[in-house]
């Protein structure tokens, strides 16, 4: 039986590594993509030691010009997983448009560029899945985090439309909306309230399950769905006065 192959875009991120390990444990083959060659080789060695079939490529996702070549260079693959992103400093973004532009570029524009190319490859083929890490932060703009939220919100909308387009061709698009994940990216944030913080391993399991079940949108852990339902339903005139 041919192995199922997954392309991991952002393979050196904490979540990317956790999902890759989960897939490796299921005997799936992996194509790892990240910017930093040295770190990529460390992650590839880890997955190789775990027994996975691994190949890797480097790509600076911010350089949109690299995207076409990257997607072309990848052989036949079943699933594409998009992880990379940055968590910008909101205060810096407020002071400096350049910081805002960079955050929007990495978290939305670059992702949309790659997704377009992946979609155009999968649409005629008629199978496979695209799993995209968005965020609960994209569900509603908040004063404390709206630049990141805007990029992720736009990404969620983009995926929603892409899902409608590709579902008619047998390709599934899964939008993942994680809440707080305890990773090095969020190390500086106080982990309170503790029950809301999930491990990358937990989120990775949910993500793989979402792909296997053909989910459309998956909040992870699950309790973020009711939480965001409440947050989205607060009237704006009250919401704007909250400190969130």
């Amino acid at each position: 039986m041919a192995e199922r192959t997954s392309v991991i875009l952002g393979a050196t991120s904490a979540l990317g590594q956790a999902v890759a390990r989960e897939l490796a444990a299921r005997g799936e083959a992996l194509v790892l993509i990240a910017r930093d060659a040295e770190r990529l080789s460390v992650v590839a060695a880890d997955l190789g030691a775990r027994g996975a079939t691994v190949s890797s490529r480097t790509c600076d996702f911010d350089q949109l010009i690299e995207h076409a070549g990257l997607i072309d260079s990848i052989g036949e693959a079943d699933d594409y997983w998009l992880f990379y992103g940055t968590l910008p400093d909101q205060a810096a973004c407020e002071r400096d448009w350049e910081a805002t532009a960079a955050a929007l570029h990495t978290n939305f524009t670059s992702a949309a560029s790659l997704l377009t190319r992946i979609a155009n490859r999968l649409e005629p083929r008629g199978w496979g899945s695209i799993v995209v890490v968005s965020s609960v932060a994209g569900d509603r703009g908040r004063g404390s985090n709206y630049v990141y939220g805007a990029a992720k919100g736009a990404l969620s909308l983009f995926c929603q439309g892409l899902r409608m387009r590709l579902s008619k061709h047998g390709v599934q698009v899964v939008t993942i909306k994680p809440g707080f994940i305890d990773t090095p990216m969020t190390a500086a944030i106080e982990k309170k309230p503790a029950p809301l913080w999930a491990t990358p391993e937990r989120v990775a399991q949910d993500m793989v399950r979402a792909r296997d079940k053909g989910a459309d949108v998956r909040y992870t852990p699950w309790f973020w769905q009711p939480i965001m339902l409440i947050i989205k339903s607060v009237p704006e005139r009250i919401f704007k006065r909250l400190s969130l």
Partner: protein
Amino acid sequence: MQAPDQVARVPAWIDGEGGARILTDAPARGACSLAYGRGRSYGDSCLNSDGELIDTRALDRFVSFDRDSGWLTAEPGVTLAAILRLIVPAGWFLPVSPGTSHATLGGAIANDVHGKNHHADGSFGRFVERFVLLRSSGQRLVCSADENTELFRATIGGLGLTGLVTQATVRLLPIRSDRMDVRIDRFQGLDAFMALAAERRDTHRYTVAWLDCAASGKAFARGVFLAANHARGDGPLEPAPPGSRLAIPFALPSRLLNRHTIRAFNSVYFARHRPLEGREIEQHYQGFFYPLDAIDRWNRIYGTRGFHQYQFVVPPGQEAALGSILQRIVRSGMGSFLAVLKEFGDLPSPGLLSFPRPGLCLALDFADRGALTETLIRALDDEVRRAGGAAYPAKDRLMTAEAFRAYFPAVDRFARHVDPRFSSDFWRRVHG
């Protein structure tokens, strides 16, 4: 366990110059550093309230695993449980297993952990082939028995004070099955324990005894002796699944554990082993090596006040001292369940500050009752010292500088290799 409320940094990478900055920039932040794994040391050797903890949980990658020769190289934050999930299906096992699989590789080196096979194989450090040590100067040093030898010896059992281990290579033990053949005996008194230990020493790779420290009179020093080997025939090679079956949901009332409940628990435990007496049972390695890992946050049975663990070794020929220490514990009425008695062997560790040494080793918990418990532990410390023994830093919060020096005569030689920007609560207490 979650890192305590201390400044904790969680690097995803410690490679290159950028990665080294977590240490080299610490002085600019006015801080000293200490690596923190999963916080499974019971005392304060893994805390650094005056500085920063380098939380190694994201440094959990395997570097290489040679399935033919049984050599494994990994980053320090990999847990022993994660290692077992990788190596058991390939027919390999940890050369030395401490009492929990939630500890990390880095922690196993820093504490030069020992296991039930100390009499046969010695401590964990004997199986560490080499490691890379990142110092606060930004230097990366390959350390082994042939290279940077003194630093190698200082780091094994060095309580994390010599720098940050960025990766380590260990030699694994081949197995043919995930099962253990466990022989069970009950004994009455220390002499009977000694006789059993001598009898099983050469036939069993793993030996350990559970000791009743609540029983007095005729039942004094009774216990259950376990001796085991990895099953010899080809069998299944299934690692334990991640996660625990049970969890203690919240801290139980501290009064739940008193001399009556503990006495009752111990009596039941002793009686329960009667039908197994003299028999050999087959058991998965998880249940044999890591019984407490099945209960998530078992420490909560001690309530919000928590507990002290105390572990010590007395040299051969000092069985009488052990008996007198045990008498004191029984008289105090503070003895816990799960006291563990083990005969250490004479295989030397490369570690300068290594705790395991020939003799008899006893480990037990004391529910924290404030000054009462402290007084008891200090009295035990005095007896251990008089007997020429040592207490285990990984499980200590009360050791004095004087006692530390007596237990670890190589301390001056060790101190020369401590990284000038590394420290811990334990180190400041015992070394100033």
